[in-house]
């Protein structure tokens, strides 16, 4: 690059003169070697190279921030991981002071909440995305799209407030009913230590079920917008072909829109899952933290990695902080893997465009 930019100015000048016809006699196809070849490499102007390098450095800074997140977490987590080793993933207790700590229970809680959130969010998001892309038209459609965007911007603390002060009281009867009639399914039973089934309302508060519902509502907008975009890219020719063959609208959706949007459905679900795993404040407000694995999702007490960090960061020694960093690192890696997978699935399902 520097060589060509050094060479190009004298070469660039003379053909320009030719083009304006000052020396037409010289341009002779029979003697191409009489003058040096014209270089086609353009010399960037100063403003261009400044712009290029500034933009490049902005991109680099963005990447560096992301890398720094991983690097700093790993460095700080090193202490704790060195002590705990592989046991970090399998220990349920959390007491860094006695060197006995691990994320088995909090990770389990995180995953239960996320799975419940998916059970709530995916049907809602799928239905809403199909509603927006296939059923709604005109004004209604753009209004619904705006509402979905707005929902994504509602702060999580507001969802948390709603979950604690409204949903908790109103969903407990449902939870009681489920545990009474579907208690034979291990997940849904609510028992005390002796295996006796519990029915009083206090056994059902602050459960993973309630947290999952709230987190589910919070991730619906993410999933809806990804799915809607995938559905709206289903080719018009196939849609019309389905209608022309006499299909109903639902028939067209099942035979054209859903197969074409499969990547969007999977990718959107996973993006939402990544969000649900990382959600902190709403979960922290709703749950009552415990450090044992609780299979009974309707029963009081669960935990999540992010809630653990928010709960313990203040009272921690430097080693305790290192342990929290290790927990954060695990959460970071999990969401990163899920998100990369989701992005590549969404990108592959699209034709042409790289993203969005």
């Amino acid at each position, binding site marked *: 690059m520097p060589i060509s930019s050094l060479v190009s100015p004298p070469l660039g000048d003379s053909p320009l003169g030719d083009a304006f016809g000052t020396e037409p006699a010289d341009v002779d196809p029979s003697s191409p070697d009489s003058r040096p070849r014209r270089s086609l490499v353009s010399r960037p102007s100063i403003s*261009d190279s400044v712009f290029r390098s500034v933009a490049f450095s902005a991109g680099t800074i963005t990447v560096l921030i992301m890398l720094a997140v991983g690097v700093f977490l790993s460095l700080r987590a090193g202490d704790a991981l060195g002590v705990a080793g592989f046991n970090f993933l399998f220990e349920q207790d959390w007491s860094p002071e006695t060197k006995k700590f691990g994320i088995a229970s909090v990770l389990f809680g995180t995953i239960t909440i996320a799975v419940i959130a998916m059970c709530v969010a995916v049907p809602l998001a799928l*239905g809403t995305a199909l509603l927006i892309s296939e059923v709604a038209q005109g004004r209604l459609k753009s209004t619904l799209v705006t509402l979905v965007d707005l929902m994504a911007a509602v702060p999580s603390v507001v969802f948390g407030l709603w979950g604690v002060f409204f949903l908790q009281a109103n969903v407990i009867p449902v939870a009681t009913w489920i545990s009474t009639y579907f208690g034979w399914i291990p997940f849904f039973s609510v028992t005390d230590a002796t295996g006796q089934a519990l029915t009083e309302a206090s056994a059902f508060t602050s459960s993973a079920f309630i947290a999952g519902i709230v987190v589910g509502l919070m991730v619906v907008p993410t999933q809806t917008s990804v799915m809607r975009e995938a559905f709206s890219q289903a080719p018009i020719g196939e849609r019309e072909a389905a209608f022309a063959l006499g299909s109903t609208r*639902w028939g067209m959706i099942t035979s054209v829109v859903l197969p074409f949007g499969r990547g969007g459905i999977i990718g959107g679900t996973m993006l939402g899952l990544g969000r649900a795993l990382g959600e902190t404040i709403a979960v922290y407000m709703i749950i009552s933290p415990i450090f044992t694995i609780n299979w009974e999702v309707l029963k009081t007490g669960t935990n999540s990695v*992010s809630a653990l960090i928010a709960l313990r960061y203040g009272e921690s020694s430097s080693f305790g902080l290192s342990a929290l960093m290790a927990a954060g690192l695990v959460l970071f890696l999990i969401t990163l893997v899920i998100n990369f997978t989701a992005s590549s699935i969404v990108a592959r399902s699209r034709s042409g465009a790289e993203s969005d």
Partner: protein
Amino acid sequence: MTNAPSTQATDPAASAGPSTLVMSETAVELEAELELQAAAVQHTTNIPSSDGIEIGPRRRMRAARVDDQFNILGAAAAGLAIAVLLFGWFGPLSGYVGFVIVAFIAFIGFYALLVSLKSDWQEVKDRVMSVVLSSAGVLLFGALVFVVAYTLVRGQEALPHLNFFTDSMELAGPLDGLELGGIVHAILGTLMQITMALIVTVPLGILTALFLNEVGGKFARFVRTISDAMTALPSIVAGLFVYSAIIVLITHQRSGFAASMAITVMMLPIVIRASDIVLRLVAGNLREAAYALGSTRWRTVWHVVLPTARPGLATAVILGTARGIGETSPVLLTSGVTAVVNLNPFEGPMISLPLQVFDFVKSPEPNMIARGFGAAAVLILLVLALFAIARLIGGKGPGDLSRAQQQRVVAASGRDLKRITVAADRRFQLEAELAASPDSSSPTVPPLDPRTKETSS
């Protein structure tokens, strides 16, 4: 219908004219062509003229029929009745949520039954699924409206007190009434933190988006992948990162600055992503026109791409701001809770609105909870206002102008045209005069006189 035959007669002749010219190379082909024409005249499609025929309003293809409406109403009534029956007379069920669920399931069942009286299985599926999709939307948006409205309604207890907006919690204890104390420290903290975050995010985010779109290349694709991955970064991890990178290493204390850096990490990918989409929507022919006129890359970006995308970029920034304002956990980790106004971003804890909400509702005192809802209502109103502004600015795509803007653009380009052509003509005239004056005696007839008249009229 009166002149329909005439169109039938003239149309084939007119359309066959050129094709006979092309095809009449050999006599055989000509004969075949004539035969074909004769056939075409006999079997041609008869398009009746629309003259004199009244065209009614366009028929709505998707309009619901009367019996569809009755089906929905009847099924809704039956579903409600079943739910009342189950919850009122047979006892095992209670609670509003359960009532709604039972009523909905009964409604779907009855609706399917009613539709199946008149239609086949395919249509039943179609109708039922339409209702299910619509109710998913109603449920979701109902939940959204309900969450927002619930906060606003419960916030009404604290909002009418003026001191709520002018005082801090410095002198107010948990047991004090709502006449004492307020959230001005949280409002100021939020404003300062978001301002500092925007100072970093806006240039960095938009420049990165420009890098992705205008510079491109392999590294740009990598940056895009990374920034996509950053959108799912858990907020608590962003807080931990800032804690370990800035607080432990540099400032050694929690501060508003650290909180704003954490918010930046959360906002940056949102702004990059949204700006990236907006910049990609800038029409390629605008860029190409700029390059064709010989402008450099930077001039194209500055004079064409950025002005075209300005509303969209503003929307991107505002949406990022709305997200950043609501972040709680990074502020919790990096700045912490305080009850006093702190205007120094580099020293001491500086609380923000969402964190203040979180802190208020941890208390069991009803007054504190009322304050929490009041602060949450303020936060929501702030987000809604930002969102409304974003829609107002960026509801349209790039280059999509309103009527007044369009007129202004047309007028401006008309002026430009005049300026350019008049100036060019004047120069041509001058050159012509200069060329003509030595040897010709009549320089009063410039060669481009008619063109001047044409453009000026």
